[in-house]
């Protein structure tokens, strides 16, 4: 077991180029900075908008409102089974084509004048067509958005000139997550939180373990606490060009397991059991570094993997101080009441710590604008935050 002495400042030594200076607060409360993030980060990167299981059949579609990109995106599985994405906008007068959040169709008709598109986005019907002026149906389909799939995750890129493929963009993340059974954990629960907070503050509150023993003293603390290491220490931190990962090592069952938890673990992975690496049913061999690996895929997507369960965050900025936090936790489709109980229990024990996390988001934002402090003081274990702010600043400065 490592001691406190050799567990200090190790990440800053591993990544010395990030330095150790305090980090400016202004990018978290400046509307002008937010507009640059909108144009230079969110309209130019690959954004996760869901999973293939949401579109099992030809003609299935769903809509994602991407306010940060000032658009609404229609994601659809065509009759040819291919998944494509489009701006959800009629070519005639610009009306939003689909108003429902999801559905199945043979074709989609605009409610304004009845222009009709097939499931591949082609314009196939124009009422009173002869009254137009040599209207070319071919050139007036829905405007396509770049759409690629990795491990069942559907990503879009709003930049029509984006040269990087999704796989190139993900880089080592795709390489290192290879082999994780995303295709088996296809039953998920969702939480949405609409919060008055900058998107980076929200993400920052999630991507370090320093807060765990304090903020989560009633919930998660036992998963990672150890008598020989008084403070939280990551097992590993890996920083890539844009993305990052922190791995937490769990305490197993040394801190004890409650009776309800024991019952739930008989049927599957619970949040606490999986995070701490204890004993439970339904473990699936996984490419993990710790017991709980937290992957941040730039800019706003998080995949947190454990053995037998994982959860994701999609963090959608709405304004400089307003963010929609979408949480999904994934399990194998339950085969019996026991497994269903286990998942309901796991869901609740994830919800409670997330509420604790959420409790600080708005409190932080409400004080940042005061100008009382100009910088954040990050410690070594918060190097992931330092990295995150630097990557955003690089994009905002260079526009790439």
């Amino acid at each position, binding site marked *: 077991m490592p001691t406190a002495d050799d567990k200090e400042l190790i990440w800053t030594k591993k990544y010395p180029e990030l330095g150790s200076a305090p980090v400016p607060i202004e990018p978290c409360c400046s509307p002008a900075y937010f507009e640059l993030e909108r144009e230079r980060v969110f309209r130019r990167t690959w954004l996760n908008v869901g999973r293939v299981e949401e579109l099992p059949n030809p003609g299935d579609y769903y809509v994602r409102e991407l306010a940060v*990109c*000032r*658009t*609404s995106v229609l994601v659809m599985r065509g009759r040819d089974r291919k998944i494509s994405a489009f*701006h*959800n*906008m*009629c*070519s*005639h*007068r*610009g*009306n*939003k084509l689909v*108003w429902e959040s999801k559905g199945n169709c043979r074709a989609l*008709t605009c*409610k*304004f*004048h*009845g222009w009709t598109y097939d499931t591949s986005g082609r314009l196939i019907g124009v*009422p*009173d067509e002869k*009254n*137009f*002026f040599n*209207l070319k149906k071919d050139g*007036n389909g829905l*405007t396509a958005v770049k759409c690629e799939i990795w491990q069942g995750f559907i990503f879009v890129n709003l930049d029509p000139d984006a040269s990087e493929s999704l796989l190139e963009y993900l880089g080592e993340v795709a390489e290192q997550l290879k082999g994780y059974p995303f295709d088996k954990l296809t039953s998920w629960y969702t939480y949405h939180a609409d919060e008055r907070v900058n998107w980076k503050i929200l993400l920052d509150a999630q991507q370090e373990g320093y807060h765990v023993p304090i903020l989560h003293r009633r919930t998660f603390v036992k998963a990672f606490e150890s008598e020989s290491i008084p403070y939280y220490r990551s097992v590993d931190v890996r920083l890539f060009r844009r993305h990052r990962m922190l791995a937490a090592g769990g305490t197993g069952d040394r801190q004890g397991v409650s009776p309800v938890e024991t019952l739930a673990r008989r049927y599957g992975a619970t949040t606490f059991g999986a995070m701490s690496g204890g004993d439970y049913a339904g473990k699936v061999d996984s490419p993990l570094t710790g017991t709980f690996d937290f992957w941040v895929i730039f800019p706003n997507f998080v995949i947190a993997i454990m053995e037998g369960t994982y959860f994701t965050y999609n963090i959608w900025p709405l304004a400089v101080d307003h963010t929609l936090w979408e949480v999904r936790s994934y399990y194998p489709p339950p085969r019996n009441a026991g497994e269903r109980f286990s998942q309901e229990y796991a869901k609740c024990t994830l919800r409670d710590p997330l509420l604790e996390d959420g409790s600080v988001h708005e409190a932080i934002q409400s004080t940042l604008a005061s100008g009382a402090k100009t910088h954040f003081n990050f410690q070594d274990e918060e190097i992931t935050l330092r990295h995150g702010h630097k990557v955003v600043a690089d994009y905002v400065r260079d526009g790439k």
Partner: protein
Amino acid sequence: MSFGYGYKGTLNCNWKIAVDSQQEAYHAVYLHRRTLGDICSMKGNRFMHALDIRFLGPHRMISLPGNQKHRPKPAEQVAHRFGWSIKRQDLGFLNPAELPKGINPTRAPDWLFDIYLIFPNFWLAPFDGAFQTHNFWPLALDRTYQEIKMYVIPPRDAGQCFSMEFAKCINRDTWLEDFSTLESTQEMLGSGAKDHFVLQDEEICVRHFYKTLDERIGSHA
């Protein structure tokens, strides 16, 4: 005629988007299929092509026909026994001998109503037995306050009251359909996915409106 009923509200859209939705009839056949139905589509004129369109300096006028073979539903038949609705063409309130030359200018037998667009933001539509106005007030680039007023022959008995209430409900539903596209259009315009409107012949008033505005604003680039 005097004020009968109306609606007003703030819309999250540019004022021109709101005006555009009231200066072409191309949308009527599809958007209003559940409310106006067969009054908008007739033999030889499935898409409610205008009887006439005239530009009057910065203003413009559209004269529109209705389907004379329109089949009123039972409640509508009762209402029409006592008064006007947007689906009624033969009230006989207007005296053909004294008709101003700008009302049903082509003297078409299937005339339903005219729309006058008084530049920049006033809309006036005479029918036989009622007239309607819209005031479009821009509040911001993407916010508009719209007021709709319907002026009617004041009802004198219960039958005429019923008729007016019926007319009001059809109008309300039709206007709600009109409003339904405005905010969703505005929302998508900012995406940059498309940079032009594709207009057909019957939407020429939209074209005229933007040209008139452009000429007044001059170069703003």
